[in-house]
């Protein structure tokens, strides 16, 4: 009960304890607790933000998918029409080619016919001439009758 020097000792002890707590206990503890509180707050905010972003991204992706689909359809349609066109073109070309080939073949044939006629004519004339020579050599000289023969050949040509 009596007051003595213990009082002074306790005052010093109290001062030291408070000083120690002030310097080494309170600031780090409080700083750490506040840091965690800030981190939790940030985390909550972040998760809210990302939830919003997810919704946005979903909408965006839907939009993109629709767009892609319509584009694909367009491309497909294009390709179809292009293909039809190509087929048509090919058909036309083939027809043209056919006509051309047929045409050229015909003219070739005609030419051949003319040539054949010519050579035939020539052969014929030669043969006739030879035959006539053979015949005439026995009877008359060729020079006398050449005019008559040529005339008859002219008629043949017609």
């Amino acid at each position: 009960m009596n007051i003595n020097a213990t009082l002074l000792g306790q005052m010093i002890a109290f001062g030291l304890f408070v000083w120690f707590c002030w310097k080494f206990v309170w600031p780090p503890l409080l700083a750490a607790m506040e840091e965690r509180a800030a981190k939790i707050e940030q985390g909550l905010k972040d998760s809210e933000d990302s939830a919003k972003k997810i919704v946005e991204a979903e909408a965006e992706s839907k939009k993109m998918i629709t767009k892609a689909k319509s584009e694909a359809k367009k491309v497909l349609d294009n390709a179809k029409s292009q293909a039809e066109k190509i087929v048509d073109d090919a058909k036309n070309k083939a027809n043209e080619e056919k006509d051309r080939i047929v045409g050229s073949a015909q003219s070739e044939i005609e030419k051949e016919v003319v040539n054949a006629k010519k050579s035939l004519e020539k052969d014929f004339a030669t043969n006739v001439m030879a035959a006539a020579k053979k015949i005439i050599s026995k009877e008359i000289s060729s020079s006398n009758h050449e005019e008559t023969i040529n005339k008859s050949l002219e008629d043949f040509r017609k």
Partner: protein
Amino acid sequence: MASEKTESTFQDYLQHHLQNLVYGKLPAGYERENKDGTVEVLTNDTWTFAYNKSEVAEMGFWAFHVDTLFFSLLLGGIFLFFFTRAAKNFSLYKPTKLQTFIEMLVDFVNGVVKGTFKTGKNTLIAPMALTIFVWVLLMNLMDLVPVDLIPYPAELLGIPYLKVVPTTDLNLTAALALSVFCLYLFFSIREKGFIGFIKSITLHPFGPWMLPANLFVEVIDMLAKPLSLALRLYGNLYAGEMIFLLIAGMVAWQLSVTGIVFGVFGTMLSLIWAIFHILIVVLQAFIFMMLTVVYMNMAHEKFEQH
């Protein structure tokens, strides 16, 4: 019981338990009475433990309550050890249970200080409040240790007296209160300026024309702060300890019917009082902290002309 070995009475038992272990100086020529009744005259001034009341009285002011100092420093050391360790090993995401508890305490004190200490900024207040709360709480909790559990073995080891509850020693509570009071004066003068401080104790509450009355009232008011602070804690804990001692002293375990009845009854009483005392222990620690913060807040208040 600690007092059973001689024909000591109930009163002796009480007085024995209410005496601190005192270490002090006995002057040369002091006649020391040994336990066996022989008298030894000291030839020199001797620093020693007091073995009875008259020796305590002879030692005067320059003596120390070794038990109070030992247990308070031990408990304060425990407080700082665990809190420093928690601060050093602080884990943001995986707190241990101890860390969670310490955080709870820090958060609690921080809340009290934020709610009460609103004038100005002072980084000392919150750590001081924490120190007071936890330290006083730990010291008060020693009251729940059965009254003879530590003193009796200590007596067998030759330690004449031992009080394990530091807050039942007025020296400790007064030391805390005086320290707080010194800080109160220091911050008052620092915040208000010396002139402002003088004004605050002379121009209140009646105005300048009643200066002596003002000074009288304010000084009483000021002195009442540490006094009430010290005596409230001391009184509550001392009374609590006293009741434990009364119950314990009443109960003398004997192998007789009345002895057993008294023993059981006393144990029940002790238990009930201990449970009730938990409330006082925590409440007094809280009140001491709270009032300290309130006084600090008052010290930081600017002087206002009413």
